[in-house]
């Protein structure tokens, strides 16, 4: 899977249609144990750089910003029962799959992302 990363700690699978979108292991680590994930509805449109989901952890509720613009064609319904999938493997636990129209400007490669995360 070829992933690209946003400065706000989301990933998107490049070159796939539809493209999976999730949060990074770093984001999962920072948020702590996830207890609830609020996802958009299938058929709704999400926009690059805008929040599209909420992740509630034992610490706080955090907004997730979309790295892409496009139509949501699938949501990861497994997260409803097992939100902690995000903590276990953030890169398998995609949030949504999107019919991508455009990517957010400035998405990074894994190497570049490694450098900015702290």
């Amino acid at each position, binding site marked *: 899977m070829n992933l690209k990363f946003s400065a706000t700690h989301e990933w998107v699978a490049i070159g796939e249609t539809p493209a999976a979108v999730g949060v990074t292991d770093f984001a999962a680590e920072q948020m702590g*144990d996830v207890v609830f994930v609020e996802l958009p509805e299938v058929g709704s449109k999400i926009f690059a750089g805008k929040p599209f989901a909420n992740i509630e952890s034992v610490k706080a509720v*955090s907004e997730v910003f979309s790295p892409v613009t496009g139509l949501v064609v699938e949501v990861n319904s497994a997260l409803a029962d097992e939100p902690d999938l995000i903590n276990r493997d953030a890169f398998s636990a995609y949030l949504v799959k999107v019919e991508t129209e455009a990517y957010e400007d400035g998405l990074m490669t894994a190497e570049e992302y490694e450098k900015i995360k*702290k």
Partner: protein
Amino acid sequence: MRLIFEKSVKDRECVVLPESDIPEYVFKDSRLLRDAPAELPELSELDLVRHYDALSARAYGVDSGFYPLGSCTMKYNPKLNETLAALPGFTDVHPLQNKDSLQGSMEAVFLLTEYLKQITGMDDGTLQPAAGAHGEFTSMLIIKAYFEKNGARTKIIVPDSAHGTNPASAAMAGFSVVNVPSRADGSVDLDALRAAVDGQTAALMLTNPNTLGIFDKNIGEISKIIHGAGGLMYYDGANLNAVMGKIRPGDMGFDIMHVNLHKTFSTPHGGGGPGSGPVLCKRFLSEFLPYPLVGRFEKTSGLPEKPRENKADLNSSDPSFERNFMENKADGGSLKGGSIPHPDRNFLECEADSSPLKDGSFFYDFLPPPKNSIGKVGSFYGNFLVAVKALAYVVALGRRGIKDAAEKAVLNANYMRVLVSEFLDSNTNSACAHESANDSNAQKNTPPPLNSVCMHEFVVSAEKLKHETGVSALDIAKALIDRGIHPPTMYFPLIVHEALMFEPTETESKETIDQAAAALKEIVETAKTNPEKIKRAPLTTPVGRPDEVKAARKPVVAR
């Protein structure tokens, strides 16, 4: 420990009651009857006493030890407050009694409102809201009502360093919330604020000092930006303890605010509460306040006198404040008709009972309700006995004592901050990007807050320690429990990673703060040599580490 229901034994009794000599009454409407008798625990008096005694031994409060829970102002609650609030004249009354028999209780409500007005620099107020967030919500409803009359506005601006209740209260009142990034020291980013403000901005919700315990020196400019756009300024009174008697929110440019009697004014929190979150406002918002209020009849004019307005004045040593605060007894008449925002209404029509008013006597104002009021948000005067306790505190401290409490709260926090900064740092790393997308811009040019003087509380970060040892802010908090200290606030404000927020309050001694700092230092040193030991804490409590995920996802709230 077993629940009291599990200890129940059928037909065991505490009290043996005599045979009832009242004829049994059969309710005609069977819908009002239970299908089966209520399932109540049945215990002997001794077992009952032991149950609650065991429970109380497991509780931890300010009376047990140091409780530096940041942003909560866990100061000591003087026992004098309890004694006074337990007087039968306050406990054995009902607000619907004839007003002549309620003058003392009404005076207590009136006086506390007056003192709060003087401390905050506001013109009117209600004691009805039952808690801080309830006060926020009430204020949001008032702001909404104001804009329903003055051109509807839909947005409330909330900095990302704000208390979580702020956006929640605004959303509950039907506003959309605009989140603006803060600078690394928690202060308002003026450029971000200017960019966020527009013709739909109803209000900015702000606490000053902010959630990192830093006084926002730009408050005058912030007010100017919001007021310039026609918006209102809301003050979250959570951090009032740092500034009471020193500077007034009304003088900083705020139009409406809440105070937490259970924080700043020494009434109990939580289980020992209830809380109380009075709302104070400037005169132009008075017509929207909940009702009823208490007024004082002034015979001289035949009508309630128009109350004095608290003029906005950024000078913190405002002479009118110095002069007026707490001096009602000296001249017997400086508290004039505080809660009478409608001199045009015939107040006599408002009276529930029609006996004549004596000069200086108290009466219910706002009966019937004024047409623009948001309505009731609680019953009568809210948690009345809490107000009595707060009044006892304010009267006991007086003008100088109130100021002194704020100064000592700041002194204690700074003393502890310097001790703790030797082994925990203030590295307010960039906020978790999920909370704030723009914070990397916001933190430029901002010194780490711990290097600067704080107000009544301070925030340290365990991020570096976690990176080096795996011991997190949570682990430190748990380890403090084993050392007899209540944990500080954790993971708040959100803009600081691995945050620990300490608020020692003015009522703690130097010795207590020294001990707490020493305990923290020992925890940090242990973390570096034997992190597993800290990660296992607490070991001395009946319950170790509750499963927070399961508690959030699969709570068992009923048997």
